[in-house]
């Protein structure tokens, strides 16, 4: 095992050396960094050219410059020396600073999108695998192929037009005409009817209820101008919380486990009490506090489950912890909605909240809620675009993996010994289907920080992709090298992790020592 890892690391280092040498030479050969001065007629033209030549050491040949760069970069390997030197960019700014800034931007952009895409994709994949050859399966398959085929820049422009400009116009006067409400309700009703499965009568019934409910809610929103002053309130949180409690228990323990259901419901009750107690505290919120509160919510849930016990204490604890976490999320959502009118009427936002470019509104001021709402409204469009693009892969992959597992003999055995369908799917099939998915997730996380060059360009986010593209267009090797080294190291590291994780999860696969 150790020899395997060491051998992989050495190969990776050699590959990195070779590739970085090539990348440096290619970037240096891709153009003339002095071109913008050659055409200019500025009086100090020669001076400017000399200054840049000195800054980028243009009078030494590129291969020698590479080894100079390598010498600086090698210092990054010395721990705690803080002498990392990745050179300077064409404007004279140290690359390490620029990289740090770009990394934060890129990670805020892609992390949420990737996590959501993985969650939604896996869920859809499993549902379609369980309902193979149903209308839902065909629909999702078609959607997956469609999303595979969408150019992201095209989607992004469409989202900007309809998601931002259109929605902002709608918010100015948030009235939903009754035909529109009925139409949206009908769409939701049909989707629900297709999703639930079962007999036609059951589908129609559930679809009809969903249609009525959605249309009524939309009309209520329109009448009360809910979109201007959104909020959940304790009543909605209570109803949604009970729904969550049932759903979580159904998936994690089964409704037959009464103790688990009771712990989940108690967690909802505690959440409702906390909702009133915590409001003054939330006014002073910081990011650290929210994280601590989330941890506290999970711990309280675990505690409730532990005290309730039952024949399977672990299941009660899991159900209660998940429920209390989700109820906590609802409370957080409610607090964000309370801050919405203030944000909406902020002098910088001026009633057009959904932003099309950048990562934050310039010069905006406000408390924690305003600032994070500002990030959300900027993140929502790129996140949607990225989810659309990467969703398809996860869905298809999970579906294939799940289908293969569902045909295994041990699934047949599990059914034959009389286990409930929930146990078969959640405990026997789902866990094993996740093994191959774990590896592609690791690959994708490795590729995350490379950023989405095109998404960043379209939405003007100054992340890693922007840094890279900017470096290329200015024939500036140092930022290109900085981005490349970061991306390559994480990608190769996560490749290794993916291989190791696979052999750890699947005992049939063993790494060669």
């Amino acid at each position, binding site marked *: 095992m150790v020899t395997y890892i060491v051998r992989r690391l050495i190969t990776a280092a050699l590959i990195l050396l070779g590739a970085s040498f090539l990348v440096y030479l290619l970037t240096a050969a891709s153009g003339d960094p002095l071109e913008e001065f050659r055409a200019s007629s500025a009086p100090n033209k020669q001076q400017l050219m000399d200054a840049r030549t000195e800054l980028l050491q243009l009078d030494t040949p590129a291969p020698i410059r590479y080894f100079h760069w390598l010498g600086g970069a090698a210092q990054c390997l010395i721990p705690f020396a803080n002498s990392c030197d990745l050179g300077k960019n064409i404007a004279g700014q140290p690359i390490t600073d620029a990289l740090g800034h770009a990394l934060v931007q890129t990670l805020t952009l892609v992390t949420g999108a990737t996590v959501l895409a993985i969650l939604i994709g896996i869920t859809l994949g499993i549902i379609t695998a369980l309902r193979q050859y149903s209308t839902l399966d065909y629909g999702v398959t078609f959607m997956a192929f469609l999303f595979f*085929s969408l150019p992201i820049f*095209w989607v992004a422009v469409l989202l900007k037009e309809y998601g931002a400009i259109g929605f902002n116009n709608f918010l100015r006067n948030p009235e939903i005409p009754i035909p529109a409400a009925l139409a949206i309700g009908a769409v939701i009703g049909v989707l629900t009817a297709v999703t639930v499965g079962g007999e036609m009568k059951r589908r129609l019934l559930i679809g009809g209820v969903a249609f009525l409910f959605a249309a009524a809610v939309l009309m209520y929103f329109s009448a009360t101008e809910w979109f201007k002053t959104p909020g959940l309130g304790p009543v909605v949180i209570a109803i949604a919380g009970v729904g969550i409690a049932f759903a979580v228990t159904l998936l994690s323990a089964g409704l037959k486990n009464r103790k688990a259901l009771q712990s989940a419901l108690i967690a909802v009750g505690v959440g409702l009490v906390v909702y009133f107690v915590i409001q003054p505290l939330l006014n002073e919120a910081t990011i650290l506090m929210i994280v601590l509160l989330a941890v506290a919510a999970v711990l309280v849930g675990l505690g409730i489950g532990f005290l309730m016990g039952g024949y399977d204490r672990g299941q009660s604890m899991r159900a209660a912890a998940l429920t209390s976490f989700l109820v906590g999320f609802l409370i957080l959502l409610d607090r964000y909605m309370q801050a919405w009118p203030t944000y909406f009427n902020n002098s910088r936002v001026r009633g057009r909240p959904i932003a099309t470019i950048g990562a934050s509104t310039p010069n905006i001021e406000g408390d924690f809620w305003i600032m994070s709402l500002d990030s959300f409204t900027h993140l929502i469009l790129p996140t949607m675009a990225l989810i659309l693009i990467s969703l398809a892969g996860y869905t298809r992959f999970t579906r294939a993996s799940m289908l293969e597992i569902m045909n295994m003999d041990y699934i047949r055995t599990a059914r034959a010994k009389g286990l409930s369908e929930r146990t078969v799917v959640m405990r026997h099939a789902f866990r094993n289907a996740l093994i191959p998915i774990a590896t592609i997730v690791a690959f994708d996380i490795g590729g995350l920080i490379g950023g989405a060059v095109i998404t960043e360009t379209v939405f003007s986010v100054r992340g890693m992709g922007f840094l890279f593209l900017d470096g290329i267009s200015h024939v500036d090797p140092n930022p290109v090298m900085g981005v490349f080294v970061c991306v390559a190291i994480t990608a190769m590291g996560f490749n290794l992790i993916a291989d190791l994780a696979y052999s750890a999860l699947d005992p049939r696969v063993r790494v060669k020592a």
Partner: protein
Amino acid sequence: MAEDAGLPAAGVEPILEAKGLSQGQIVRKRFLGHSGAIIGLVVFAIIFVTAFTSVGYWGIPGWWKYSHDQVTPLVNDGVPTASLWPLAWGDHPFGQDRIGRDLFAMTMRGAQQSITVMLVIGLIAGLIGVVVGALSGYFRGWTEAILMRLTDVIIIIPALLLAAVMAQMAGRRDSGSWFATFASSNGILALGIFLGLITWVGLARLMRGEFLSLREREFVDAARISGASNARIIFKHILPNAIGVLIVNITLTMSAAILTETALSYLGVGVKAPDTSLGLLISQNQEAFATRPWLFWFPGLFIVLICLSINFIGDGLRDAFDPRQKKFNAKKAKDHGKHPLEATPVTAFDGTKDD
């Protein structure tokens, strides 16, 4: 699962394969039975023929009256004249851009470019991928070590950087190198060749895996004992068994290649201005979305259509080549079998089951 024995008769038709058809016939039959793939094939054929005959190719004139760079007077501010109801085609079916160029001609030209790039990439990537994968998978040892390290290096070099370098080199027409002259006259071909030279890595890894497992099989041993040469074993014994995986993945590489080409053109390092491509059209016209949305809709629609049809063809091929797949007609099965209980027996319908 109990009614397993009764169900396959409903949807699966094993008769066809019991007659002793050759592998090729089975694959063809399965492919033709895949309605998604057939629709994809028809759509792609229509786009292919229209794109290449309408505006002409390589100097051969086409039947459409405008060319992609011809400026004509603006008619009705360039609004598309095509309409579904009443069905009409008109003078400028897709509309005109700001200076009066015909969008139909431009889109067709762009579709030509995308299809050319796609085919060139499929050809080159397939060829190099097979050679590298076969050599490293079959001979192993040093050959494998060197070739696979080479693929590792190429796989982590970003395609965007290489495209930018090539675009820069092609841009220097005055420098008079053979590459610059070639690239300036056949921009799209150069881009395709170059993208093909970097996209083979995935295929090579895949083919290596196939070769690694196939070379350990008994029929290869038998061939070797009866004195077959390495070349004969590779071409006659192993490659035909790996051809399914190869074809399917070349199709998928090609559909990804279209998106890569459009993305590179969008970023300004692919196809350059006097010529046009679907990605370039979108990038040139995205600012005009509010005033001339059609300039944006039609090129995007064609990217999606081409890519979607290729993906469906690939899916059909994958099903056709999958030896575990039985010909399956879901609708028939549904009519026959009484509605089974929820989820449980649905998996018994699974086409990938070998029984």
